[in-house]
């Protein structure tokens, strides 16, 4: 019997104060797609970084085709044919697309960079991932989703034997994701092996030949193709059954709280947006990446003030020019980019939780420490934030717990309207559920909730009503009884319904 292409045995890795991996093993055969799943902080990314030579393990061994290898730098891993698409975007956005794709591996002619060849070959890889931009486009001009596709093209250009993808779809639209899945199928048929990480179990179900589950830095079990079911995966990940995924009960809508009329955002000033949010409602907002949903929320919240239209909160007209004004009117926003806009990574949990309510709790400009302490105690328990104490810096929390800190920050202010932009992106299934539970709880107390999501199952499961956007325009509104994948996709692409099964990997009911 031939040795597997890649075999890792008893890998351990510690960071100051954390054991990210303890004796983890993994095998990957030729032409196989193995999904690695686990909760936030389970050690998935750490394992991948070790395999790609970004980090070196404290102990353990990696074998390629039966021969031990020392992957002590990215370059070595690349030479062995191992390429990694990182969880975070890692592009130099001052350079153009072609330069990024070949960064570190530039072909030379007479000792100088062979630009023609780079551009020519980059174009081929861009085509493969279905990104229709010139190789000479500066990366900073691309949307996040497009940048993610550039990352994928970059990994493809390595011609790797082992391609590792760490949450590649977290910022892709379903259309873009569908293209990626085609690419994956194609690569597999050509004998390329892939490690695939995702929190979207639907994707895993659709793609994986085998599933490896990590829990707290250890192997929690493997699932062969035949055994891959949603329930089995969840059970291995969290160590118990999670009863029901979406506990949705319709909410009787109350008085109108947020009325938006003719709102024009700066990026899409031509399109006026109208909608109303009622107390106690959960409204989902669907659309493809770049449809302008973030832009709309940011206009409501005063981050990039709207260029026209009116916003009323409880009948009061407001024109927020800054988040400060929006907050004063009773709005709160959980932003899309958690690490850059949501939390202050190097500050303690307590300081993050109190940041927005300092002004309200101040005593003539002085901090109210008693109130701060009480608040953080309350939020830590109410949101079940997992941390040893509230002086822990947020940096060391898992994504889900970081997101809970962001939510806690706003709950302290008792907002009338809660805006959530991709609230569960990159968050594990346990934490997701807690966030859903919290949304339900808030809506029962009369808070109006508008949440943007690119995960259709989330929209389908949670919302009382769904708004769909396409290129800066509100293309439709679906009541719960009208809600279906096809209907949403139809409005999101603004085209006739053409349901494509792979584009939105459906959950087993």
């Amino acid at each position, binding site marked *: 019997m031939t040795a597997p292409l890649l075999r890792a045995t008893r890998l351990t890795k*510690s*960071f*100051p*104060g954390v*054991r990210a991996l303890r004796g983890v093993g993994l095998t990957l055969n030729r032409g196989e797609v193995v999904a690695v799943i686990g909760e936030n902080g389970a050690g998935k990314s750490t394992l991948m970084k070790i395999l790609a030579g970004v980090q070196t393990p404290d102990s353990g061994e990696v074998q390629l085709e039966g021969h031990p290898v020392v992957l002590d730098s990215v370059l070595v891993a690349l030479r062995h044919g191992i390429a990694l698409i990182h969880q975070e975007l890692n592009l130099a956005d001052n350079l153009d697309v072609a330069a990024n794709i070949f960064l570190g591996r530039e072909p030379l002619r007479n000792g100088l960079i062979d630009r023609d060849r780079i551009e020519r070959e980059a174009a081929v890889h861009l085509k493969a991932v279905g990104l229709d931009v010139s190789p000479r486009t500066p990366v900073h001009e691309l949307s996040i989703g497009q940048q993610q596709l550039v990352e994928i093209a970059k990994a493809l250009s390595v011609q790797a034997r082992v391609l590792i993808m760490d949450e590649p779809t977290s910022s892709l639209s379903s259309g873009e994701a569908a293209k990626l899945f085609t690419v994956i199928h194609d690569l597999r048929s050509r004998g390329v092996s892939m490690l695939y990480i995702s929190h979207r179990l639907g994707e895993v179900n659709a793609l994986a030949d085998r599933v490896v589950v990590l829990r707290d830095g250890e192997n929690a079990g493997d699932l062969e193709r035949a055994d891959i079911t949603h329930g089995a995966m969840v059970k291995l990940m969290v160590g118990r059954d999670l009863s029901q995924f979406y506990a949705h009960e319709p909410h009787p809508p109350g008085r109108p709280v947020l009325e938006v009329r003719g709102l024009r955002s700066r990026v899409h000033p031509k399109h006026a947006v109208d909608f109303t949010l009622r107390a106690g409602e959960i409204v989902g907002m669907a659309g493809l990446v770049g449809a302008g949903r973030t832009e709309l929320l940011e206009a409501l*919240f005063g*981050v990039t003030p709207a260029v026209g239209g009116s916003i009323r909160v409880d009948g009061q007209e407001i024109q927020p020019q*800054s*988040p*400060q004004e*929006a*907050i*004063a009117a009773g709005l709160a*926003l959980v*932003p899309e980019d958690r690490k*850059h*806009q*949501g*939390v*202050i*990574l*190097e*500050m303690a949990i307590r*300081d993050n939780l109190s*940041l*927005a309510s*300092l*002004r309200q709790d*101040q005593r003539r*400009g*002085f*901090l109210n420490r008693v109130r701060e302490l009480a608040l953080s105690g309350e939020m830590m328990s109410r949101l079940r934030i997992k941390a040893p104490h509230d002086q822990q810096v947020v940096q060391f929390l898992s994504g889900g717990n970081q997101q809970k800190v962001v939510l806690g*920050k706003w709950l302290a202010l008792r907002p009338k309207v809660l805006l959530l932009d991709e609230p569960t992106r990159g968050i594990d299934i346990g934490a997701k559920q807690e966030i859903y539970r919290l949304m339900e709880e808030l809506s029962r107390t009369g808070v109006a909730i508008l949440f943007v999501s690119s995960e259709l199952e989330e929209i389908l499961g949670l919302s009382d009503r769904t708004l769909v956007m396409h290129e800066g325009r509100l293309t439709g509104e679906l009541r719960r009884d009208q809600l279906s994948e096809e209907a949403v996709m139809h409005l999101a692409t603004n085209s006739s319904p053409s349901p494509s099964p792979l584009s939105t990997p459906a959950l087993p009911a």
Partner: protein
Amino acid sequence: MRKILGITALLIVVCVITSLASSSFLSAYNLENLIRRTALFGIISIGVAFVIVTGGIDLSIGSVVCLVGCGLPWLLTTHHWSVPTALAAVILVSVGIGLGHGLLITRLRLPPFVVTLCGLLLYRGIARGFTQDQTVGFGSEFKALRSLATGQIPLPFLSGFALPAPWIFLIAVAVLAAIFLNRTIYGRYLLALGRNEDAARYSGINTRRMIVLAYVISSTLAGLGGILFVLDVNSAQPVDFGNFYELYAIAAAVLGGCSLRGGEGTIVGVIVGAALMQVLRNMITLVTTHNNIEFAIIGAVILLGVIADELVKRYAARRRAARALAAEGAG
């Protein structure tokens, strides 16, 4: 507090060495001088610390010291303004300079380095212009005013030693600054935006106004420093008055634990940093017979200080990690 342990230890070591090498070091007269100098540099260093906390930089401090230091005697002796008017004028100019920096940085999004570098060139140039490159000073006038910087406050139980007046200013500034930074919501806002400006803005903080405030504090304290410096020295030459003081101030702030990446800083640390620089210079004059390697020594000590600090931090982190793992293994 942990952050300033290293620098405080270094200060103590330098003091001990100097007092062993020179019996004059601990004389009342020398201590008075040292305290006065530390106070003057401490005030401008606290100012720049606020800007550094926001992740910015202020290179114009020395030139503001020059502008104010030349402007005050010029207004008083050449133009015969009254003392309160002249003081108000130079303070107002300092505030205005900070406001200008802050607005250029927050509204036009110009890099702080560039804005304040231009300030460095501009304000000294202006001082040279209006004084016509003449030395300005108070001569033997304005004794009362000058006692703000040169005055001595006798202490009840210590005969032979009197507290230099600038120390009162430093203590007042330091206490206010420490309360502001650690006890008010504005201080918290500064620390937060220094770490992550976007997140602070998304939390409803008017980050622009806070950044402007930091530059205003920096320039105003530089102005106050300029006033005290010229009252102490009694004369100012626009060409070199306050030259390089921005670097000393920044060095003191950094030594005292302010990170140039923003979001970190303690006022006590800044004062310790300023004191260290002054004690070093004092040591070189007291202990050696040539003062031309003074700067080499200051540079070397700062460098060794930050290197040692870094190495100690790493060692401590490794120890802590090892302990944590051992505990886990045992538990």
